[in-house]
């Protein structure tokens, strides 16, 4: 009898560990939460389970998703990039500025295309520059990333606000906006962009020496340095990567808002950290997967969509996001206690 239960127990834990290392990176709890939320909203909200909801969901997710990806890479190394929103905004501003000053109503399709290309290259170069500068500052001064990126955020935001006087720049060419709103077999292009980038980031972080070095730095930077890894170069790489993802976020932002401003999406900054931690990324670094992050983002967006259709305030949605994070963290802490409570009762009679 004891053997049987032992076998059963080890079989169960085997199954659990296999489930945990499965596709979305061992997030059975989050999966359950997501299923529960989707089912709940489908029953309670009349038009929730519809193609329209799914499509608006796919339009809304990419911006927050890309920004969270940009936040995730530094988090994995035990750092933080508070400048992601500022970088995104400045890159979007630069692209919008180039497009609106160099494209006149009478310019031909060829010129328009060339200018858009130029704008994209300029935006990408700006992000590259910001990322390299941030990375070098963090890697070579050894100052805590919170401080450095607080400084760069302030600096970048300051430059954007100073140059635009806080105004929004609109006037994105028709062709660009149309591409942003386009769909492929019903799936928005921006959503496809998010999926492609998520897959790329996931492969980079899990399958390349660079990604493994990132996780090692997050666990123990000194030990990583002693294993003959150039930690400084990896850190520069991480912040450059984070900044480059911001370029794609800037594209999505331009395409969805048709304008750029220094203070768009500022409230997303802390939400990206929240999403990353909800997705199982250790804020001290070392652990976390893109799959978990995407799952957490889906949960946050489902809550937001469902509540919007309920007609509830946006503020309440943010409050619930915070509540969910606390709840999930509590569940993680409680699990060992609960398991400890259950075990003696099962083993007792034998």
């Amino acid at each position: 009898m004891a053997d049987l239960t032992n076998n059963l127990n080890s079989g169960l834990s085997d199954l659990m560990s296999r489930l945990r290392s499965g596709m979305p990176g061992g997030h059975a709890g989050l999966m359950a939460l997501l299923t529960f939320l989707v089912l709940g909203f489908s029953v309670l909200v009349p038009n929730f389970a519809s193609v329209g909801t799914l499509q608006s969901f796919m339009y809304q997710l990419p911006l927050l998703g890309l920004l969270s990806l940009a936040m995730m890479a530094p988090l994995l190394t035990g750092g933080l990039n508070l400048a992601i929103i500022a970088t995104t905004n400045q890159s979007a501003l630069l692209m919008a500025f180039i497009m609106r000053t160099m494209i006149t109503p009478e310019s031909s399709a060829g010129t328009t295309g060339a200018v858009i290309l130029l704008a994209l290259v300029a935006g990408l170069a700006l992000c590259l520059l910001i990322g390299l500068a941030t990375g070098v500052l963090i890697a070579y001064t050894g100052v805590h990333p919170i401080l450095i990126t607080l400084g760069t955020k302030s600096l970048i935001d300051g430059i954007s606000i100073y140059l635009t006087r806080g105004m929004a720049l609109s006037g994105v060419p028709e062709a660009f906006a149309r591409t942003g709103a386009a769909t492929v077999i019903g799936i928005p292009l921006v959503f496809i962009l998010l999926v492609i980038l998520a897959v790329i980031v996931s492969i980079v972080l899990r399958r390349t020496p660079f990604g493994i070095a990132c996780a090692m730095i997050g666990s123990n930077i000194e030990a990583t340095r002693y294993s003959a890894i150039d930690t400084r170069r990896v850190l520069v790489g991480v912040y450059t990567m984070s900044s480059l993802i911001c370029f794609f976020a800037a594209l999505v932002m331009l395409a969805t808002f048709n304008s750029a401003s220094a203070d768009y999406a500022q409230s997303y900054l802390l939400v990206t950290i929240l999403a990353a931690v909800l997705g199982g990324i250790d804020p001290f670094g070392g652990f976390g997967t893109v799959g978990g992050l995407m799952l957490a983002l889906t949960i946050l967006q489902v809550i937001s969509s469902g509540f919007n259709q309920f007609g509830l305030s946006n503020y309440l949605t943010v409050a619930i996001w915070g509540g969910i994070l606390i709840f999930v963290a509590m569940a993680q802490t409680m699990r060992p206690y609960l398991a400890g409570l259950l075990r003696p009762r099962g083993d007792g009679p034998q």
Partner: protein
Amino acid sequence: MRDGVPSTSAQSALTRLRRRPEAWLLVVILIVGTIFSLTARDFLSLPNIIDLLETYSVQAIMAMGLFVVLVSGGIDISFAATASVAQYCAALLASQLGLPAPLVIMSGLAVGAILGCLNALLIHYVRITSIIATIAMMSVSFSLLMYFSGGKSIYTLPDWWTDRIVFWQTETESGDLVRITLPIVAMVVVTLFTWAWMIRSSAGRQLYAMGGNAEAARRIGIDIGRLQFVAYGYLGLMAAIAGMLQAHRVGESVPNAMYNTELAVLSAAVLGGASLTGGIGTVPGVLLGIVLLAILQNGLNLLGVSSYFFQIVIGITILASTSLTVISSRRGRRHRILAEAPANG
């Protein structure tokens, strides 16, 4: 400030001083102050300085609370939200129910302390990292405040709250009225109390010990859990005081007036040498951090520089001063003597 370390000679005292972030900060402040006093005529005038003190008193009080949490090895992002909630609750009690002053102030302070203790609860018992727990708490408390208040300001604060309380006043030759008002006095009292408390009381020293190494502190018998509640509760209390003083200054309670000040206060505290990893930092240093940001903003204003430019200056200041501090302390690290205590008060 460095108690119990006898200085062997004037030279070693000087080299020790060079390694203190406060010393560097003071040099920077003196340089910036000299430049401004030479270029902007009104900069060093008494009315301007008093005005500056009053403007930054709210941030300084919050910085004192945040300093205690930083020393204990934690971080708190939620204090601006806490201040808003405490302020709005107190304003509701005062304007809707017409409660007497002591009751309103007590309940405002209680709200702040409770929110702070809630943070400590999440951090100590639920074991959420402090930055995550306080971000979550910030979104919960601020969003709920905006939801329930509907973003509406309260303009009907009672007279006892909005009347200026002047402790001392004088008239300069040019006819300007100079007044030492309640916010300045409150800031001085809070600063002196925090300073004395962190250096002279056993709780303060235990907080330093815990920030330096929590496990070591626990093993010598320090109650870590109690200290977490003390640190975050103190910050909640300070946030509540700052929130009510802010309403006192502007004469109304606006739910999102203090939102987004948390990063400014955090950068001031860190500029002043409070370490994000805990155990290091001094009250004068944090105060100097606030002073630097204050005179930068004020001096640029007096010079007629666009206020849009200010954020660029803050960014450069943070980057330059933190990098400078780290580089200078790294140079000194090689020659550090074992007998020297870490720089903590």
